[in-house]
Protein backbone atom coordinates (compact mmCIF):
# COMPACT_ATOMS: atom_id res chain seq x y z
CA UNK A 1 0.00 0.00 0.00
CA UNK A 2 3.00 2.25 -0.14
CA UNK A 3 3.11 4.87 -2.87
CA UNK A 4 4.57 3.17 -5.91
CA UNK A 5 4.21 5.33 -9.00
CA UNK A 6 4.23 3.76 -12.42
CA UNK A 7 7.05 4.87 -14.69
CA UNK A 8 6.84 8.20 -16.50
CA UNK A 9 5.46 8.46 -19.97
CA UNK A 10 8.14 7.93 -22.64
CA UNK A 11 9.67 10.99 -24.22
CA UNK A 12 8.03 10.23 -27.55
CA UNK A 13 4.74 11.20 -25.95
CA UNK A 14 6.32 14.35 -24.65
CA UNK A 15 4.15 17.01 -26.22
CA UNK A 16 1.17 15.17 -27.50
CA UNK A 17 -1.58 14.37 -25.03
CA UNK A 18 -3.37 11.09 -25.64
CA UNK A 19 -6.63 9.75 -24.38
CA UNK A 20 -4.81 6.70 -23.11
CA UNK A 21 -2.32 8.61 -20.99
CA UNK A 22 -3.19 8.96 -17.31
CA UNK A 23 -5.48 11.85 -16.47
CA UNK A 24 -2.97 13.15 -13.95
CA UNK A 25 0.66 12.20 -13.62
CA UNK A 26 2.97 14.02 -11.18
CA UNK A 27 6.59 13.19 -10.43
CA UNK A 28 8.58 14.87 -7.71
CA UNK A 29 6.28 17.88 -7.80
CA UNK A 30 7.54 20.42 -5.31
CA UNK A 31 6.61 23.96 -4.44
CA UNK A 32 8.21 26.27 -1.94
CA UNK A 33 7.21 29.75 -0.82
CA UNK A 34 10.40 31.34 0.46
CA UNK A 35 11.68 29.03 3.18
CA UNK A 36 8.31 27.22 3.50
CA UNK A 37 7.93 23.93 1.69
CA UNK A 38 4.23 23.67 0.79
CA UNK A 39 4.51 20.49 -1.29
CA UNK A 40 7.57 18.31 -0.74
CA UNK A 41 7.79 15.81 -3.59
CA UNK A 42 4.45 14.68 -4.90
CA UNK A 43 4.29 11.47 -6.93
CA UNK A 44 0.83 10.74 -8.15
CA UNK A 45 -0.94 8.90 -10.95
CA UNK A 46 -4.67 9.19 -11.52
CA UNK A 47 -6.09 7.13 -14.36
CA UNK A 48 -8.80 8.39 -16.67
CA UNK A 49 -12.30 7.92 -15.32
CA UNK A 50 -11.24 7.78 -11.67
CA UNK A 51 -12.55 9.80 -8.75
CA UNK A 52 -9.46 10.42 -6.71
CA UNK A 53 -9.84 11.78 -3.19
CA UNK A 54 -6.96 13.89 -1.94
CA UNK A 55 -7.28 14.02 1.78
CA UNK A 56 -5.47 16.12 4.32
CA UNK A 57 -5.86 18.76 6.98
CA UNK A 58 -5.57 22.50 6.37
CA UNK A 59 -2.04 23.45 5.39
CA UNK A 60 -1.09 19.93 4.28
CA UNK A 61 -0.44 21.07 0.71
CA UNK A 62 -3.71 20.04 -0.95
CA UNK A 63 -4.56 23.39 -2.48
CA UNK A 64 -0.98 24.08 -3.56
CA UNK A 65 -0.94 20.69 -5.32
CA UNK A 66 -4.20 21.46 -7.11
CA UNK A 67 -3.00 24.91 -8.11
CA UNK A 68 0.14 23.41 -9.65
CA UNK A 69 -1.82 20.72 -11.48
CA UNK A 70 -4.29 23.21 -12.96
CA UNK A 71 -1.56 25.66 -14.14
CA UNK A 72 -2.26 28.42 -11.62
CA UNK A 73 1.06 27.90 -9.87
CA UNK A 74 4.39 26.93 -11.36
CA UNK A 75 6.13 24.05 -9.58
CA UNK A 76 9.50 24.88 -8.01
CA UNK A 77 10.69 21.54 -9.35
CA UNK A 78 9.33 18.24 -10.65
CA UNK A 79 6.89 17.66 -13.51
CA UNK A 80 3.24 16.98 -13.99
CA UNK A 81 1.05 16.15 -16.95
CA UNK A 82 -2.68 16.60 -16.88
CA UNK A 83 -4.90 15.16 -19.65
CA UNK A 84 -1.62 14.23 -21.30
CA UNK A 85 -0.12 17.73 -21.36
CA UNK A 86 2.67 19.29 -19.36
CA UNK A 87 1.38 21.79 -16.80
CA UNK A 88 4.33 24.12 -17.33
CA UNK A 89 5.00 23.92 -21.06
CA UNK A 90 1.55 23.20 -22.48
CA UNK A 91 -0.57 25.36 -20.20
CA UNK A 92 -3.14 26.24 -22.86
CA UNK A 93 -3.71 22.59 -23.76
CA UNK A 94 -4.14 21.78 -20.07
CA UNK A 95 -6.54 24.69 -19.54
CA UNK A 96 -8.67 23.58 -22.48
CA UNK A 97 -9.07 20.17 -20.86
CA UNK A 98 -9.48 20.85 -17.16
CA UNK A 99 -12.27 22.37 -15.16
CA UNK A 100 -11.51 23.83 -11.76
CA UNK A 101 -13.65 24.83 -8.82
CA UNK A 102 -11.40 26.25 -6.15
CA UNK A 103 -12.15 26.44 -2.44
CA UNK A 104 -13.83 29.83 -2.57
CA UNK A 105 -16.42 30.26 -5.31
CA UNK A 106 -14.67 32.76 -7.58
CA UNK A 107 -17.42 34.89 -9.07
CA UNK A 108 -18.19 38.44 -10.09
CA UNK A 109 -21.04 39.52 -7.82
CA UNK A 110 -22.10 42.29 -10.20
CA UNK A 111 -22.93 40.00 -13.14
CA UNK A 112 -25.74 37.49 -13.50
CA UNK A 113 -25.08 33.78 -13.45
CA UNK A 114 -25.98 33.58 -17.14
CA UNK A 115 -23.58 36.40 -18.03
CA UNK A 116 -20.73 34.62 -16.27
CA UNK A 117 -21.55 31.36 -18.06
CA UNK A 118 -21.67 33.17 -21.42
CA UNK A 119 -18.38 34.91 -20.74
CA UNK A 120 -16.79 31.59 -19.86
CA UNK A 121 -18.17 29.99 -23.06
CA UNK A 122 -16.77 32.85 -25.15
CA UNK A 123 -13.31 32.60 -23.62
CA UNK A 124 -13.32 28.90 -24.57
CA UNK A 125 -14.51 29.94 -28.06
CA UNK A 126 -17.55 27.66 -28.01
CA UNK A 127 -19.65 28.27 -31.13
CA UNK A 128 -22.85 30.22 -30.37
CA UNK A 129 -25.37 27.42 -30.76
CA UNK A 130 -23.27 24.99 -28.76
CA UNK A 131 -22.69 27.59 -26.06
CA UNK A 132 -26.42 28.25 -25.74
CA UNK A 133 -27.22 24.55 -25.52
CA UNK A 134 -24.42 23.95 -23.03
CA UNK A 135 -25.45 26.87 -20.83
CA UNK A 136 -29.08 25.70 -20.83
CA UNK A 137 -27.92 22.20 -19.78
CA UNK A 138 -25.77 23.59 -17.00
CA UNK A 139 -28.50 25.85 -15.64
CA UNK A 140 -30.72 22.78 -15.44
CA UNK A 141 -27.93 20.70 -13.98
CA UNK A 142 -26.99 23.01 -11.12
CA UNK A 143 -30.63 23.77 -10.43
CA UNK A 144 -30.37 27.55 -10.50
CA UNK A 145 -33.68 28.13 -12.31
CA UNK A 146 -34.75 31.75 -12.69
CA UNK A 147 -31.99 32.88 -10.36
CA UNK A 148 -29.60 32.49 -13.27
CA UNK A 149 -30.64 35.93 -14.54
CA UNK A 150 -30.20 37.58 -11.15
CA UNK A 151 -26.93 39.14 -10.07
CA UNK A 152 -24.62 36.73 -8.32
CA UNK A 153 -24.43 39.08 -5.33
CA UNK A 154 -27.95 37.96 -4.38
CA UNK A 155 -27.04 34.22 -4.35
CA UNK A 156 -26.76 32.05 -1.24
CA UNK A 157 -23.50 30.23 -0.50
CA UNK A 158 -24.83 26.98 -1.96
CA UNK A 159 -26.02 28.69 -5.14
CA UNK A 160 -22.67 30.42 -5.57
CA UNK A 161 -20.87 27.10 -5.21
CA UNK A 162 -23.16 25.43 -7.74
CA UNK A 163 -22.65 28.26 -10.23
CA UNK A 164 -18.91 28.01 -9.70
CA UNK A 165 -19.12 24.30 -10.53
CA UNK A 166 -21.17 25.09 -13.64
CA UNK A 167 -18.49 27.57 -14.77
CA UNK A 168 -15.89 24.85 -14.39
CA UNK A 169 -17.95 22.58 -16.68
CA UNK A 170 -18.83 24.95 -19.55
CA UNK A 171 -16.12 23.63 -21.89
CA UNK A 172 -16.77 19.94 -21.08
CA UNK A 173 -13.42 19.28 -19.40
CA UNK A 174 -11.83 15.84 -19.31
CA UNK A 175 -10.45 16.33 -15.81
CA UNK A 176 -12.10 18.28 -13.03
CA UNK A 177 -10.34 19.58 -9.96
CA UNK A 178 -12.62 20.24 -7.04
CA UNK A 179 -10.83 21.86 -4.14
CA UNK A 180 -12.90 21.23 -1.02
CA UNK A 181 -16.13 21.51 -2.98
CA UNK A 182 -18.44 21.12 -0.01
CA UNK A 183 -16.59 22.98 2.75
CA UNK A 184 -19.06 25.32 4.41
CA UNK A 185 -22.10 23.90 2.61
CA UNK A 186 -25.25 22.76 4.35
CA UNK A 187 -26.00 19.01 4.20
CA UNK A 188 -28.55 19.35 1.40
CA UNK A 189 -26.18 21.35 -0.83
CA UNK A 190 -23.41 18.92 0.01
CA UNK A 191 -25.49 15.96 -1.15
CA UNK A 192 -26.33 17.83 -4.36
CA UNK A 193 -22.64 18.33 -5.08
CA UNK A 194 -21.95 14.65 -4.38
CA UNK A 195 -24.71 13.57 -6.73
CA UNK A 196 -23.36 15.84 -9.44
CA UNK A 197 -19.79 14.62 -8.96
CA UNK A 198 -20.95 10.99 -9.32
CA UNK A 199 -23.05 11.82 -12.37
CA UNK A 200 -20.15 13.60 -14.10
CA UNK A 201 -17.93 10.64 -13.45
CA UNK A 202 -20.33 7.86 -14.31
CA UNK A 203 -22.30 9.47 -17.12
CA UNK A 204 -19.70 11.70 -18.77
CA UNK A 205 -16.57 9.74 -17.89
CA UNK A 206 -14.92 12.79 -16.39
CA UNK A 207 -11.90 12.18 -14.19
CA UNK A 208 -12.33 13.91 -10.85
CA UNK A 209 -9.60 15.02 -8.51
CA UNK A 210 -11.25 16.00 -5.28
CA UNK A 211 -9.57 17.48 -2.26
CA UNK A 212 -11.40 17.30 1.00
CA UNK A 213 -10.98 17.47 4.73
CA UNK A 214 -14.07 15.32 5.13
CA UNK A 215 -13.30 11.65 5.43
CA UNK A 216 -16.89 10.75 4.83
CA UNK A 217 -16.75 12.62 1.53
CA UNK A 218 -13.65 10.77 0.35
CA UNK A 219 -15.19 7.50 1.51
CA UNK A 220 -18.48 8.15 -0.27
CA UNK A 221 -17.10 9.40 -3.57
CA UNK A 222 -13.54 8.37 -4.22
CA UNK A 223 -12.42 5.13 -5.84
CA UNK A 224 -8.94 5.83 -4.53
CA UNK A 225 -7.73 8.06 -1.77
CA UNK A 226 -4.34 9.67 -1.20
CA UNK A 227 -3.50 11.18 2.16
CA UNK A 228 -1.21 14.21 2.12
CA UNK A 229 0.50 15.40 5.25
CA UNK A 230 3.30 17.91 5.61
CA UNK A 231 3.46 18.36 1.85
CA UNK A 232 3.94 14.66 1.12
CA UNK A 233 1.68 11.90 -0.07
CA UNK A 234 1.98 9.48 2.83
CA UNK A 235 -0.39 6.73 1.78
CA UNK A 236 -2.62 5.84 -1.14
CA UNK A 237 -5.18 3.14 -1.95
CA UNK A 238 -8.89 2.39 -2.18
CA UNK A 239 -10.80 3.35 0.96
CA UNK A 240 -11.27 -0.35 1.77
CA UNK A 241 -7.59 -1.17 1.31
CA UNK A 242 -6.62 1.70 3.54
CA UNK A 243 -9.10 0.75 6.24
CA UNK A 244 -8.06 -2.90 6.13
CA UNK A 245 -4.45 -1.81 6.58
CA UNK A 246 -5.32 -0.40 9.98
CA UNK A 247 -6.68 -3.72 11.23
CA UNK A 248 -10.03 -5.43 11.16
CA UNK A 249 -11.32 -3.64 14.25
CA UNK A 250 -10.54 -0.55 16.23
CA UNK A 251 -10.88 -0.35 20.01
CA UNK A 252 -11.21 3.15 21.41
CA UNK A 253 -10.54 3.59 25.14
CA UNK A 254 -11.38 6.90 26.78
CA UNK A 255 -9.53 7.44 30.05
CA UNK A 256 -8.93 9.94 32.85
CA UNK A 257 -5.41 9.74 34.21
CA UNK A 258 -1.93 8.72 33.17
CA UNK A 259 -2.08 8.60 29.37
CA UNK A 260 1.59 7.81 28.69
CA UNK A 261 1.58 4.73 30.90
CA UNK A 262 -1.70 3.51 29.39
CA UNK A 263 -0.35 4.02 25.88
CA UNK A 264 2.76 2.03 26.77
CA UNK A 265 0.71 -0.77 28.31
CA UNK A 266 -1.43 -1.21 25.20
CA UNK A 267 1.51 -1.10 22.83
CA UNK A 268 3.08 -3.90 24.80
CA UNK A 269 0.07 -6.16 24.14
CA UNK A 270 0.67 -8.73 21.38
CA UNK A 271 -2.92 -8.45 20.13
CA UNK A 272 -2.57 -4.73 19.44
CA UNK A 273 -1.28 -4.04 15.93
CA UNK A 274 -0.98 -0.25 16.33
CA UNK A 275 -1.94 2.13 19.06
CA UNK A 276 -2.16 5.91 18.96
CA UNK A 277 -2.96 8.33 21.78
CA UNK A 278 -5.14 11.32 20.87
CA UNK A 279 -6.35 13.64 23.61
CA UNK A 280 -7.95 11.44 26.24
CA UNK A 281 -8.42 8.55 23.79
CA UNK A 282 -6.30 5.52 23.00
CA UNK A 283 -7.06 4.10 19.57
CA UNK A 284 -5.88 0.51 19.16
CA UNK A 285 -6.05 -1.48 15.93
CA UNK A 286 -6.72 -5.17 16.58
CA UNK A 287 -7.73 -8.28 14.68
CA UNK A 288 -10.90 -8.83 16.71
CA UNK A 289 -12.44 -6.12 18.88
CA UNK A 290 -14.64 -8.29 21.13
CA UNK A 291 -11.71 -10.60 21.91
CA UNK A 292 -9.36 -7.70 22.59
CA UNK A 293 -11.53 -5.68 24.97
CA UNK A 294 -11.03 -7.88 28.10
CA UNK A 295 -7.27 -8.04 27.54
CA UNK A 296 -7.06 -4.29 27.03
CA UNK A 297 -9.11 -3.69 30.19
CA UNK A 298 -6.92 -5.94 32.23
CA UNK A 299 -3.73 -4.39 30.83
CA UNK A 300 -4.93 -1.02 32.09
CA UNK A 301 -5.99 -2.41 35.45
CA UNK A 302 -3.78 -1.19 38.25
CA UNK A 303 -2.54 1.88 36.37
CA UNK A 304 -3.26 5.34 37.86
CA UNK A 305 -6.29 6.00 35.64
CA UNK A 306 -10.03 5.53 35.26
CA UNK A 307 -11.56 3.99 32.14
CA UNK A 308 -14.52 6.12 31.11
CA UNK A 309 -15.49 4.17 28.03
CA UNK A 310 -14.38 1.32 25.80
CA UNK A 311 -15.91 0.95 22.36
CA UNK A 312 -15.29 -1.24 19.34
CA UNK A 313 -15.89 -0.14 15.75
CA UNK A 314 -14.83 -0.79 12.19
CA UNK A 315 -11.80 1.23 11.07
CA UNK A 316 -12.56 4.52 9.33
CA UNK A 317 -10.42 6.62 7.04
CA UNK A 318 -9.84 8.79 10.08
CA UNK A 319 -8.09 5.83 11.69
CA UNK A 320 -5.94 5.49 8.57
CA UNK A 321 -5.17 9.14 8.82
CA UNK A 322 -4.32 8.82 12.49
CA UNK A 323 -2.03 5.92 11.82
CA UNK A 324 -0.06 7.55 9.01
CA UNK A 325 0.12 11.07 10.39
CA UNK A 326 -0.22 10.57 14.14
CA UNK A 327 -3.04 13.11 14.28
CA UNK A 328 -6.79 13.17 13.81
CA UNK A 329 -8.02 15.03 10.78
CA UNK A 330 -10.06 17.32 12.99
CA UNK A 331 -13.14 17.39 15.14
CA UNK A 332 -15.36 18.10 12.16
CA UNK A 333 -13.87 15.35 10.04
CA UNK A 334 -16.38 13.00 8.62
CA UNK A 335 -19.31 14.88 10.01
CA UNK A 336 -21.91 16.14 7.61
CA UNK A 337 -22.53 19.60 8.88
Amino acid at each position, binding site marked *: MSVSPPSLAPASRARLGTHTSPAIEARGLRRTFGPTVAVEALDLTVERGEIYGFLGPNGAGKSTSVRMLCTLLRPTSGHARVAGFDVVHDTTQVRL*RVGVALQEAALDAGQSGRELLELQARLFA*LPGSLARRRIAELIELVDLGDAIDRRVGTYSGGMRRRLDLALALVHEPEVIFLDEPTTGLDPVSRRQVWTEVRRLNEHDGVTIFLTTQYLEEADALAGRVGIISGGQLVVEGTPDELKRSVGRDVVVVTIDGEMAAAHEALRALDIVEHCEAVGDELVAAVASGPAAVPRIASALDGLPLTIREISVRRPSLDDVFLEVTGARLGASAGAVR
Partner: protein
Amino acid sequence: MNASLDPAIVMPAPATDVADRLSRREARRAGLLRDLIVVARRAVRQVVREPAAIIPALVIPVFFFVVNVGALQKLAGAAGTTDYAAFQLPVAVISAVTGVSRANALVTDIATGYFERLLLTPVNRLALLLGLMVADLVVVAALCLPVLVLGALAGVSFATGPAGILAFVAVAAAWGVAYTGFPYAIALRTGSAAAVASSFILFFPLLFLTTAFVPKAALSGWLATVSDLNPMTYVLAALRSIVSDGWQAGPLLQGVAAIGIVGTISITLAFLALRGRLAGR
Protein backbone atom coordinates in the same frame (compact mmCIF):
# COMPACT_ATOMS: atom_id res chain seq x y z
CA MET B 1 -5.15 25.76 -31.19
CA ASN B 2 -3.30 23.96 -33.91
CA ALA B 3 -5.68 21.30 -35.17
CA SER B 4 -2.82 18.96 -36.03
CA LEU B 5 -1.98 18.81 -32.33
CA ASP B 6 -5.46 17.74 -31.38
CA PRO B 7 -5.06 14.18 -30.15
CA ALA B 8 -8.65 13.46 -31.15
CA ILE B 9 -7.66 13.97 -34.76
CA VAL B 10 -4.37 12.11 -34.84
CA MET B 11 -5.37 9.26 -32.53
CA PRO B 12 -8.19 6.86 -33.43
CA ALA B 13 -10.58 7.22 -30.51
CA PRO B 14 -12.00 4.08 -28.89
CA ALA B 15 -15.66 3.56 -29.66
CA THR B 16 -16.99 4.66 -26.32
CA ASP B 17 -19.24 7.53 -25.38
CA VAL B 18 -16.43 9.18 -23.51
CA ALA B 19 -13.96 9.08 -26.35
CA ASP B 20 -16.68 10.22 -28.71
CA ARG B 21 -17.38 13.19 -26.49
CA LEU B 22 -13.70 14.03 -26.24
CA SER B 23 -13.21 13.77 -29.97
CA ARG B 24 -15.96 16.34 -30.43
CA ARG B 25 -13.96 18.76 -28.28
CA GLU B 26 -15.04 22.25 -29.25
CA ALA B 27 -13.13 24.34 -26.72
CA ARG B 28 -10.20 26.25 -28.13
CA ARG B 29 -8.45 29.58 -27.77
CA ALA B 30 -10.67 32.40 -28.89
CA GLY B 31 -7.77 34.62 -29.98
CA LEU B 32 -6.62 38.03 -28.76
CA LEU B 33 -9.29 40.10 -30.47
CA ARG B 34 -12.25 38.03 -29.26
CA ASP B 35 -10.78 37.78 -25.77
CA LEU B 36 -10.31 41.52 -25.75
CA ILE B 37 -13.93 42.14 -26.72
CA VAL B 38 -15.18 39.70 -24.05
CA VAL B 39 -13.12 41.34 -21.31
CA ALA B 40 -14.02 44.87 -22.44
CA ARG B 41 -17.75 44.11 -22.64
CA ARG B 42 -17.84 42.84 -19.11
CA ALA B 43 -15.90 45.90 -17.90
CA VAL B 44 -18.26 48.35 -19.65
CA ARG B 45 -21.25 46.46 -18.22
CA GLN B 46 -19.75 46.88 -14.75
CA VAL B 47 -19.48 50.65 -15.22
CA VAL B 48 -23.07 50.91 -16.43
CA ARG B 49 -24.24 48.93 -13.40
CA GLU B 50 -22.17 50.85 -10.89
CA PRO B 51 -22.28 54.43 -12.09
CA ALA B 52 -21.27 55.62 -8.61
CA ALA B 53 -17.69 54.76 -9.54
CA ILE B 54 -17.60 57.48 -12.17
CA ILE B 55 -19.59 60.18 -10.33
CA PRO B 56 -16.40 61.98 -9.20
CA ALA B 57 -15.36 62.13 -12.84
CA LEU B 58 -18.64 63.89 -13.60
CA VAL B 59 -18.62 66.28 -10.63
CA ILE B 60 -14.96 67.31 -10.38
CA PRO B 61 -14.68 68.84 -13.87
CA VAL B 62 -17.87 70.85 -13.34
CA PHE B 63 -16.50 72.07 -10.03
CA PHE B 64 -13.12 73.04 -11.50
CA PHE B 65 -14.71 74.74 -14.46
CA VAL B 66 -17.26 76.77 -12.52
CA VAL B 67 -14.86 77.79 -9.77
CA ASN B 68 -11.93 78.60 -12.04
CA VAL B 69 -13.94 80.52 -14.58
CA GLY B 70 -15.92 82.32 -11.86
CA ALA B 71 -12.88 83.28 -9.82
CA LEU B 72 -10.27 83.98 -12.46
CA GLN B 73 -12.10 85.18 -15.55
CA LYS B 74 -11.66 88.89 -14.87
CA LEU B 75 -8.08 88.46 -13.79
CA ALA B 76 -7.31 86.46 -16.90
CA GLY B 77 -9.06 89.04 -19.06
CA ALA B 78 -6.85 91.74 -17.59
CA ALA B 79 -3.82 89.57 -18.39
CA GLY B 80 -4.91 89.23 -22.01
CA THR B 81 -6.81 85.90 -22.13
CA THR B 82 -10.02 86.91 -23.82
CA ASP B 83 -12.07 83.69 -23.57
CA TYR B 84 -11.24 82.14 -20.22
CA ALA B 85 -14.06 79.57 -20.47
CA ALA B 86 -12.44 78.24 -23.67
CA PHE B 87 -9.08 78.29 -21.87
CA GLN B 88 -10.51 76.26 -18.97
CA LEU B 89 -12.48 73.70 -20.98
CA PRO B 90 -9.39 71.50 -21.56
CA VAL B 91 -8.68 71.56 -17.81
CA ALA B 92 -12.24 70.34 -17.20
CA VAL B 93 -11.96 67.54 -19.69
CA ILE B 94 -8.56 66.45 -18.37
CA SER B 95 -9.91 66.32 -14.82
CA ALA B 96 -12.85 64.25 -16.11
CA VAL B 97 -10.77 61.59 -17.83
CA THR B 98 -7.63 61.33 -15.71
CA GLY B 99 -7.54 58.46 -13.26
CA VAL B 100 -10.72 56.83 -14.57
CA SER B 101 -9.93 53.13 -14.89
CA ARG B 102 -11.15 49.67 -13.99
CA ALA B 103 -8.24 49.23 -11.58
CA ASN B 104 -10.54 48.97 -8.57
CA ALA B 105 -12.63 46.35 -10.33
CA LEU B 106 -9.39 44.51 -11.07
CA VAL B 107 -8.50 44.61 -7.38
CA THR B 108 -11.94 43.16 -6.60
CA ASP B 109 -11.37 40.38 -9.16
CA ILE B 110 -8.04 39.58 -7.55
CA ALA B 111 -9.58 39.56 -4.06
CA THR B 112 -12.57 37.39 -4.99
CA GLY B 113 -10.53 34.94 -7.02
CA TYR B 114 -12.40 35.77 -10.24
CA PHE B 115 -9.08 36.89 -11.76
CA GLU B 116 -7.84 33.33 -11.20
CA ARG B 117 -11.03 31.93 -12.69
CA LEU B 118 -10.11 33.92 -15.84
CA LEU B 119 -6.52 32.67 -15.69
CA LEU B 120 -7.87 29.12 -15.73
CA THR B 121 -9.34 29.77 -19.18
CA PRO B 122 -7.15 29.90 -22.29
CA VAL B 123 -7.71 33.68 -22.44
CA ASN B 124 -4.80 35.63 -23.87
CA ARG B 125 -3.16 37.17 -20.80
CA LEU B 126 -2.61 40.51 -22.54
CA ALA B 127 -6.35 40.72 -23.17
CA LEU B 128 -7.00 40.73 -19.42
CA LEU B 129 -5.37 44.17 -19.25
CA LEU B 130 -5.90 45.49 -22.79
CA GLY B 131 -9.60 44.63 -22.58
CA LEU B 132 -9.94 46.83 -19.50
CA MET B 133 -8.14 49.64 -21.31
CA VAL B 134 -10.50 49.32 -24.28
CA ALA B 135 -13.38 49.67 -21.81
CA ASP B 136 -11.64 52.69 -20.29
CA LEU B 137 -11.42 54.27 -23.73
CA VAL B 138 -15.18 53.91 -24.15
CA VAL B 139 -15.83 55.30 -20.67
CA VAL B 140 -13.50 58.31 -20.90
CA ALA B 141 -14.80 59.20 -24.36
CA ALA B 142 -18.32 59.16 -22.87
CA LEU B 143 -17.14 61.32 -19.96
CA CYS B 144 -16.04 64.00 -22.43
CA LEU B 145 -19.65 64.55 -23.48
CA PRO B 146 -20.90 66.29 -20.31
CA VAL B 147 -17.82 68.51 -20.43
CA LEU B 148 -18.66 69.49 -24.01
CA VAL B 149 -22.20 70.31 -22.91
CA LEU B 150 -20.77 72.41 -20.07
CA GLY B 151 -18.58 74.26 -22.58
CA ALA B 152 -21.52 74.87 -24.89
CA LEU B 153 -23.55 76.25 -21.98
CA ALA B 154 -20.64 78.58 -21.16
CA GLY B 155 -20.62 79.77 -24.77
CA VAL B 156 -17.39 78.07 -25.84
CA SER B 157 -17.22 77.45 -29.58
CA PHE B 158 -14.62 75.35 -31.40
CA ALA B 159 -12.40 77.18 -33.87
CA THR B 160 -11.88 73.83 -35.63
CA GLY B 161 -15.61 73.10 -36.02
CA PRO B 162 -17.30 69.71 -35.57
CA ALA B 163 -14.18 67.77 -36.60
CA GLY B 164 -12.35 69.68 -33.90
CA ILE B 165 -14.83 68.44 -31.31
CA LEU B 166 -14.00 64.87 -32.34
CA ALA B 167 -10.28 65.63 -32.20
CA PHE B 168 -10.74 67.20 -28.75
CA VAL B 169 -12.47 64.06 -27.49
CA ALA B 170 -9.85 61.84 -29.15
CA VAL B 171 -6.91 63.66 -27.54
CA ALA B 172 -8.60 63.78 -24.12
CA ALA B 173 -9.58 60.10 -24.29
CA ALA B 174 -6.11 59.09 -25.43
CA TRP B 175 -4.66 60.95 -22.45
CA GLY B 176 -7.16 59.26 -20.12
CA VAL B 177 -6.16 55.80 -21.36
CA ALA B 178 -2.45 56.65 -21.34
CA TYR B 179 -2.76 57.48 -17.66
CA THR B 180 -4.60 54.24 -16.71
CA GLY B 181 -1.37 52.26 -16.73
CA PHE B 182 -0.44 53.79 -13.36
CA PRO B 183 -3.52 52.59 -11.42
CA TYR B 184 -3.36 49.21 -13.19
CA ALA B 185 0.30 48.81 -12.28
CA ILE B 186 -0.53 49.59 -8.64
CA ALA B 187 -3.57 47.29 -8.68
CA LEU B 188 -1.59 44.38 -10.08
CA ARG B 189 1.42 44.95 -7.83
CA THR B 190 -0.48 45.43 -4.58
CA GLY B 191 -3.99 44.02 -5.04
CA SER B 192 -5.04 46.89 -2.76
CA ALA B 193 -7.91 49.29 -3.40
CA ALA B 194 -6.40 51.87 -1.04
CA ALA B 195 -3.15 51.86 -2.97
CA VAL B 196 -5.05 52.31 -6.23
CA ALA B 197 -6.92 55.28 -4.78
CA SER B 198 -3.59 56.85 -3.89
CA SER B 199 -2.56 56.82 -7.55
CA PHE B 200 -4.85 59.81 -7.95
CA ILE B 201 -2.25 61.82 -6.01
CA LEU B 202 -0.02 61.65 -9.09
CA PHE B 203 -2.62 63.67 -10.88
CA PHE B 204 -2.31 66.79 -8.70
CA PRO B 205 1.26 67.81 -9.52
CA LEU B 206 0.56 66.93 -13.14
CA LEU B 207 -2.46 69.25 -13.27
CA PHE B 208 -1.38 72.07 -10.98
CA LEU B 209 2.30 72.44 -11.91
CA THR B 210 1.37 73.43 -15.41
CA THR B 211 -0.62 75.93 -17.41
CA ALA B 212 -3.94 74.94 -15.86
CA PHE B 213 -4.78 78.47 -14.66
CA VAL B 214 -2.69 80.91 -16.66
CA PRO B 215 -0.95 80.82 -20.03
CA LYS B 216 2.65 79.77 -20.20
CA ALA B 217 3.87 83.36 -20.71
CA ALA B 218 2.43 84.30 -17.31
CA LEU B 219 4.27 81.50 -15.45
CA SER B 220 7.55 82.49 -13.84
CA GLY B 221 10.53 81.05 -11.99
CA TRP B 222 10.56 77.38 -11.06
CA LEU B 223 6.94 76.84 -12.06
CA ALA B 224 7.81 77.80 -15.64
CA THR B 225 10.64 75.27 -15.64
CA VAL B 226 8.51 72.51 -14.12
CA SER B 227 5.65 73.18 -16.51
CA ASP B 228 8.08 72.88 -19.44
CA LEU B 229 8.88 69.37 -18.24
CA ASN B 230 5.28 68.49 -17.41
CA PRO B 231 3.63 66.44 -20.18
CA MET B 232 0.27 67.85 -19.14
CA THR B 233 1.38 71.29 -20.39
CA TYR B 234 1.57 69.92 -23.92
CA VAL B 235 -1.70 68.03 -23.68
CA LEU B 236 -3.47 71.19 -22.49
CA ALA B 237 -1.77 73.20 -25.24
CA ALA B 238 -2.98 70.71 -27.87
CA LEU B 239 -6.55 70.79 -26.57
CA ARG B 240 -6.53 74.61 -26.35
CA SER B 241 -5.24 74.92 -29.87
CA ILE B 242 -8.15 72.79 -31.07
CA VAL B 243 -10.68 74.91 -29.19
CA SER B 244 -9.29 78.40 -29.74
CA ASP B 245 -6.72 78.52 -32.52
CA GLY B 246 -7.85 76.20 -35.31
CA TRP B 247 -5.83 73.32 -36.76
CA GLN B 248 -2.18 73.76 -35.79
CA ALA B 249 0.23 70.91 -36.32
CA GLY B 250 2.83 72.04 -33.77
CA PRO B 251 0.85 71.90 -30.52
CA LEU B 252 -1.14 68.88 -31.73
CA LEU B 253 1.98 66.84 -32.44
CA GLN B 254 3.59 67.90 -29.16
CA GLY B 255 0.43 66.92 -27.28
CA VAL B 256 0.26 63.55 -29.00
CA ALA B 257 3.97 62.99 -28.28
CA ALA B 258 3.44 63.81 -24.58
CA ILE B 259 0.54 61.34 -24.43
CA GLY B 260 2.72 58.78 -26.19
CA ILE B 261 5.54 59.18 -23.69
CA VAL B 262 3.28 59.01 -20.61
CA GLY B 263 1.33 56.13 -22.12
CA THR B 264 4.48 54.19 -22.93
CA ILE B 265 5.77 54.58 -19.37
CA SER B 266 2.49 53.83 -17.61
CA ILE B 267 1.40 50.95 -19.81
CA THR B 268 4.88 49.42 -19.64
CA LEU B 269 4.65 49.58 -15.84
CA ALA B 270 1.21 47.96 -16.00
CA PHE B 271 2.36 45.08 -18.20
CA LEU B 272 5.44 44.56 -16.06
CA ALA B 273 3.13 44.37 -13.05
CA LEU B 274 0.91 41.88 -14.90
CA ARG B 275 3.96 39.80 -15.74
CA GLY B 276 5.01 39.97 -12.08
CA ARG B 277 1.60 38.74 -10.98
CA LEU B 278 1.64 35.90 -13.50
CA ALA B 279 5.24 34.91 -12.73
CA GLY B 280 5.38 31.64 -10.88
CA ARG B 281 2.07 30.58 -12.38
